[in-house]
């Protein structure tokens, strides 16, 4: 059975290591914070200028002057700090943030990512995505393996406007966990429970590399 959004978030949470500073994108990546084990201490960075982001506030705690990069009201935890947008992207560009988790519309087998623009359709802007993908040492993409109309989102080449080149290291989809190989190709690491390698191959337009037995995702 394919993973749901929570399943994807739970699997990505296992990639989080003690002591990491992490930037979480909007959507599934935001959910990851809910599944980080209690014995793992991390700090969440929000690129609008907050490090040490906490959970959503209670009704009584709501503060219009404290939001995350998705413009949602948030809280901060003990040890938090607040800074300007220039400082925030300085810490991103300077690679002080260890892990970036974000969504994508397409990823290529070389690790290119497209997630900001559909020509003729949506005019929104890239926000901080281009800065994040250009600088992060470790980028994990959370996405559906196929689009709503069934087309693969793991491609030889991205068809949509690029957000960044050769930057994605790992992808967690509803069907599989994959690593982007430096020489190109999606190396299949794990498959969703009950999903066969063949089903994953069929859903992957780019080069899929399968070596040996592929274990099921444990969440």
């Amino acid at each position, binding site marked *: 059975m394919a993973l749901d959004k929570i399943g994807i978030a739970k699997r990505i949470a296992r990639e989080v290591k003690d002591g990491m500073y992490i930037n979480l994108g909007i959507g599934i990546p935001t959910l990851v914070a809910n599944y980080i084990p209690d014995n793992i201490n991390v700090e969440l960075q*929000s*690129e*609008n*200028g*907050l490090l040490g982001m906490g*959970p*959503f*506030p*209670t*009704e009584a705690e*709501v*503060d*219009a*002057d*404290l*939001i*995350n*990069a*998705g*413009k*949602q*009201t*948030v809280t901060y935890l003990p040890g938090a700090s*607040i*800074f*300007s*947008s*220039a400082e*925030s*992207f*300085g810490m*991103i*560009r300077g690679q002080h943030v260890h892990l970036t988790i974000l969504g994508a519309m397409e990823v290529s087998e070389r690790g*290119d990512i497209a997630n900001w623009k559909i020509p003729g359709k*949506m*005019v*929104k*802007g*890239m*926000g*901080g*995505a*281009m*800065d994040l993908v*250009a*600088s992060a040492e470790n980028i994990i993409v959370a996405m559906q393996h196929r689009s709503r109309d069934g087309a693969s989102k793991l491609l030889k080449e991205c068809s949509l*406007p*690029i*957000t*960044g*080149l050769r930057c994605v290291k790992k992808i967690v989809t509803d069907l599989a966990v994959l690593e982007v190989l430096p020489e190109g190709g999606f190396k299949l690491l794990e498959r969703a429970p009950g999903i066969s390698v063949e089903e994953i191959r069929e859903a992957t337009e780019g080069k899929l590399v399968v070596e040996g037995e592929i274990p099921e995702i444990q969440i």
Partner: protein
Amino acid sequence: MINKVVSNADEALQDIQDGAVLMLGGFGLCGIPENSIAALLRKGVKGLTCISNNAGVDDFGIGLMLQTRQVKKMISSYVGENAEFERQLLSGELEVELIPQGTLAERIRAGGAGIPAFFTPAGVGTEVARGKETREFGGKTYLMESWLRADFALVKAWKGDTAGNLIYKGTARNFNPMMAAAGKITIAEVEELVPAGELDPNMIHTPGIYVQRIYQGQQYEKRIEQRTVRS
């Protein structure tokens, strides 16, 4: 001590002309100069270029200035919450330049700090890189980006003093400090204006040297875009 205080937003903005290049602080609706935007609406100046991370929502923030067709060009990183913006853009009434958020922040910072250009990895290999100089440093490619400066920077702070020193609260800081430094004339509105000497110099975020005019803002609405609570 130089006194920067003006009585209200209308007085502060009196010499903004049609076609001016403005910077407006804020991230979403958080930390936006509400009173200065209201004064721009009253004043009716047109043909403005607005440098701001976002373009407000349809009925608040810069969105209000789009409704009145006062904006000729927006320079932003993300404009997704504004249907009127999208309509004017698709119909060609409005020019827009979309810039990666970190590049936008740094271009403004560079403008205030007297650095005409810098190199960043953001946007390499994308449409943002078109026509821009690239250079390799340590085997990695970077894009050259130039500074941004403005005729007027409109910023909003939590507290300020008569000398123009500013302290921001929470994530309402965002783009405000860099914009304060990048405006030829910087106009700060504050929730609480106090006499010089009352703010602890150790706690100042924006030194008064960057601020030409400061006024006490009125009736802050501080609208929340995505009110999200836990039970």
